[in-house]
């Protein structure tokens, strides 16, 4: 009997262990992403970008979440008086909402950057741009991911 219990406990532990590990990183949610965006803007309001002001390109259907091409471009003259200072990418499903941040200078010439990211599931990916006049503008794309990243052994 006591033998049985021990076995049962042992079995339960083995089954539970991977579950605990999977749950331990809290994981981003639309709410924690919003908090991360507020931290980025230092509480300043974020306007929805006008049509074409931010071009955020990510495939709409992704088969492999481990390497997803991302390209972002913000329309700007990139002069010392009027330029894009920083563009931050946020997600709402990965373990952390922060994804990548690009810092530009007038000598960048354009506010454009490409990279490859990991996406842990179907979600919206947001781009928030900080402009040199202190305004923040935002856009997002919805990405469907069939094979998520991050938790593979």
């Amino acid at each position: 009997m006591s033998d049985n219990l021990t076995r049962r406990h042992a079995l339960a532990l083995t089954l539970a262990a991977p579950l605990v590990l999977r749950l331990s990183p809290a994981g981003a949610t639309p709410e924690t992403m919003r908090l991360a965006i507020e931290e980025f803007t230092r509480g300043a309001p974020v306007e929805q970008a006008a049509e074409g002001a931010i071009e955020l390109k990510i495939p709409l259907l992704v088969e492999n979440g481990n390497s997803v091409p991302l390209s972002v471009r913000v329309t700007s003259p990139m002069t010392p008086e009027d330029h894009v200072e920083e563009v931050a990418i946020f997600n709402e499903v990965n373990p952390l909402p922060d994804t990548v941040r690009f810092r530009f200078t007038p000598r960048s010439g354009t506010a454009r950057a490409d990279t490859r990211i990991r996406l842990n599931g179907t979600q919206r990916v947001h781009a928030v741009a900080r402009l040199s006049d202190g305004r923040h503008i935002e856009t997002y794309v919805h990405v469907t991911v069939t094979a998520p990243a991050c938790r593979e052994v």
Partner: protein
Amino acid sequence: MAALLNVPETAAPGEIVEIKVLIQHPMETGFRTAQGGGLVPRNIIHTVSCHYMGEEVFSAELFPAVAANPYLAFTLVAEESGEVEVRWTDEAGEEFSQSAPITVG
């Protein structure tokens, strides 16, 4: 740590040129389960910066959501002949850099 840095050999003064860099690095997220239990310790490249004519012209802050072997493409305004240097640092404290010349004129 190996990296491929792509800088155009020549450019006209004032031309906007594209710089591409591909850095070999696992970008270990710290969320991956190791074989035998536990998590693989996190080690990512956290900063990549590009320097040209004695100034930082572009930089990026990377998080674990950047894919392994980070790839970055960005632009700069070609003004003078010189070196375009890309520097990066990972969380193990390792600093690296690679540069390539550009001829402007």
